[in-house]
């Protein structure tokens, strides 16, 4: 289709969708209303299960199957990215060169890295108490690792994180979530049931299986994001086609 025809079709579609959605918005309940039946039920159930963070209770206890699906989506996407960004036979891997980094930046990165790792682990551990949880903490841990790439260079990062180990951790995280769900089945109640003792409210071990599922998700998300970024870093920095190898040689010769 020519560009003009596409704009006409798009304009018609956008107009129709806008009209439909605007008509629907006029009949929506007013913003900020007080009628939230599902929410009130969820809050009551979360407090009954002694989980302080109700969002984590909804995510890992009441609607745990959603989170299983969500983690499988992340797991499948990382697996897909590993397959799609693999090194095809007509490409070569160039070893990353040490890069020079201003010392101030290097010192900053080295000092902040353990701090950021600790924060990430804290967010995962306190998933059922304070805002945050397995997913947010996992991403913080994964991005903290990449401070090494910014502070030092790609080679240092590669030495610290062997990608094979993280793929294993990814598989173990996903498998742990599924097995924890099956534990509810073995304990006599339904799949993904919160059968562990709920502990006392607002303490680290409260909420039964919520902290365990949080930990499984945290491990899986941290390793998944590390593997994801490793693939993108490899494509951007290391993997070179045969044809462009001369460009690399020219740069090295200068």
């Amino acid at each position, binding site marked *: *289709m020519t560009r003009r025809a*596409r704009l006409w*079709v*798009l304009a*018609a*579609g*956008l107009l*129709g*969708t806008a*009209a*439909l*959605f605007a*008509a*629907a918005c*006029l*009949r*929506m*309940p007013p913003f900020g209303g007080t*009628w939230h039946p*599902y929410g009130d*039920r969820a809050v009551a*159930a979360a407090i009954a299960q002694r989980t302080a963070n109700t969002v984590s209770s*909804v995510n890992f*206890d*009441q*609607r*745990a*199957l959603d989170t299983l*699906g*969500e983690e*499988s*989506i992340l*797991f*499948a*996407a990382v*697996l*897909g*990215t*590993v*397959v*799609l960004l*693999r090194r095809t036979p*007509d490409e070569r891997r160039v070893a990353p060169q040490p890069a020079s980094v201003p010392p101030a930046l290097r010192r900053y990165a080295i000092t902040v890295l353990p701090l950021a790792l600790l924060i990430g682990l804290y967010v995962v551990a306190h998933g059922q108490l304070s805002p945050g949880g397995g997913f947010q903490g996992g991403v913080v841990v994964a991005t903290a690792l990449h401070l090494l790439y910014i502070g030092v260079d790609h080679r240092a990062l590669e030495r610290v994180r062997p990608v*094979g180990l993280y*793929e*294993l951790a*990814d*598989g*173990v995280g*996903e498998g742990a979530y*599924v*097995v924890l*769900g*099956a534990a*509810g*089945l073995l304990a006599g109640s*339904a*799949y*993904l*049931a919160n059968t562990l003792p709920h502990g006392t409210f607002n303490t680290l071990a409260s909420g039964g299986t919520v902290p365990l599922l949080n930990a499984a998700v945290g491990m899986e998300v941290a390793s998944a994001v590390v593997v994801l970024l490793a693939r993108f870093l490899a494509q951007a920095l290391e993997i070179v086609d045969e044809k462009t190898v001369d460009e690399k040689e020219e740069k090295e010769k200068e």
Partner: protein
Amino acid sequence: MDRLLPLIVAVPLLGAAVLVGAGRRMPRLAAETVACACAAASTALACAALARATTVVSWAGGWRPRHGVSGGIVLVGDRIGLGLAALASVLVLAVLAYSWRYFEEPPRGHSGAFPALVLLFQAGMCGFALTGDLFDAFVFFELMGVCGYALTGYHVEESRPVQGALAFGFVNSLGSYATLMGIALLYARTGELGMAAIGRQLDAAPERDALVAAAFVLVMTGLLVKAAAVPFHFWLPDAHAVAPTPVCLVLSGVMVETGVYGVARVHTTVFGGPGGIPAAGTRRVLVVLGVVSAVTGAVMCWQQRHIKRLLAFSTVGHTGLFLVGVGLLTDEGLSGTCLYVLGHAGAKAALFACTGILLARLGSVDEHELHGRGRDIRGIGLLFALGGLALAGLPPFGTGLGKAVVEEGSAWLPALFGLVSALTGGAALRVAARVFLGTGERGREEEPETAGGEEEPETAGGEEEPETGRRIRLAPPPMVSVAVALLAGALAVGTVPALAEATYAASSAFLDHAGYAATVLGGRAGGGQPGHAAAAHGGAWWTWTGAALGLLSAALAVVLAAAAVVGLVPSRGWSAPLRRLHSGHIGDYVAWTTAGIGLLSLLTLW
């Protein structure tokens, strides 16, 4: 049994986790055996659940409803949901068997990657088929999508798979985000996420206003994108023409059908009651889109040279017929569509399997280039011809039975079903005649097949290099046996009366809006009204008129194929504008998807 229902979804996930976790240290043979074991386990679970007479209802996490409301997610194992999950698992088993050492060396250290992705794909389909929660359906819909994008673009060393996967990814993601907007609207109005609960809340205060209509349109958008209904269908031919053949088996065999299942399920449970969309509105939407999709798919299928693209357009055509069957909103329509889906899955997967063998042996899927080169594998040619006849609705096949049952719905249906079956079946027979018998002239190689003057030729599929890395001499046994088994399955669907009877009973239970809500929320023993189903069991079986119509469409297909081979077929010019619309441009596809949303709202509110 109801506690084990979630394991149908969990077992493939565990298998995928094991395959990825042990990916580096696991030899290829072990990886594929583990994958087959997991797929077989969930097939057995699905069939065991099917064997029980009543609907299996399982609340994840034990959050059973107290006086009619619950905060958890429900998995509903009714006959048709479990049937779809079983079909998906069987096709995944067929794919894993078919691709037994089919690919050249897998990527170093990731021998488990392809089977793991296929297992995740199966988990997504089984989850989507079983879930009774709208947001959970969106999550599994996305899981199917993500696995589909990765599997379609598997051959990254070629230029076309990557483009097909991109088109697949953009259009399907946009469709699923529209569905999520619809779910948010429904949540605002009803405060519920379970399909039965939303249906009940809508019926409690039945006001059929713009919000319910907008929610209907937006939720249906994502499902119709997955079901490849016109104008949302543009991604399907691009994705199928380039995906590895084992993946095409699943994409065409069952993934597109999950979209049709989703449309039927959401309409019946959520919008089927007094508070939802009036039946006439839904019938108008589904029948109009179905007819347009069927005709477009059939016409485009006839024009194709690229065999996989030809089969993809035939899937669009047949999905249009499924939408018409579902759109009739009758027991015959739905049970006929179920039989048609089962028969079509077997026949289409067998055709793709044969195409895979052709690609593996002759390194091409272009009809003209393969002219007469398939003479020494006549067995595959016979399978291909049988598949083409099945598509054309030849009586003993399940497709013929499904077509016959749906055609009884109203007077104009036999003409539509006959024409579409004849065109798609005829195209497949034409390919079989040209490739395996070498009849007719070499094919118009000299004038380039350009849709419009200066553009370079259309997708011809000539220079595809075989997926097995090196041209294999004789077809490997697993590939042939899978093709034969799938065709035998399509034949069995049409010949086993108990299966047809079961689908008829299941359809009347499926279409029961109040019965579903009572089963899921009220906890009353499920299975709909056994009395009603048993009495009217006669509806879904061969009739003289049905068999005659099947023979007629098959004969028409053979005549069309013969005419095409001899060269009497009309020139391709008249359909050039339609072919130019399939431009492969992502911006076009997104524009057509948005236009589709506008079209849907017009059809619903009109």
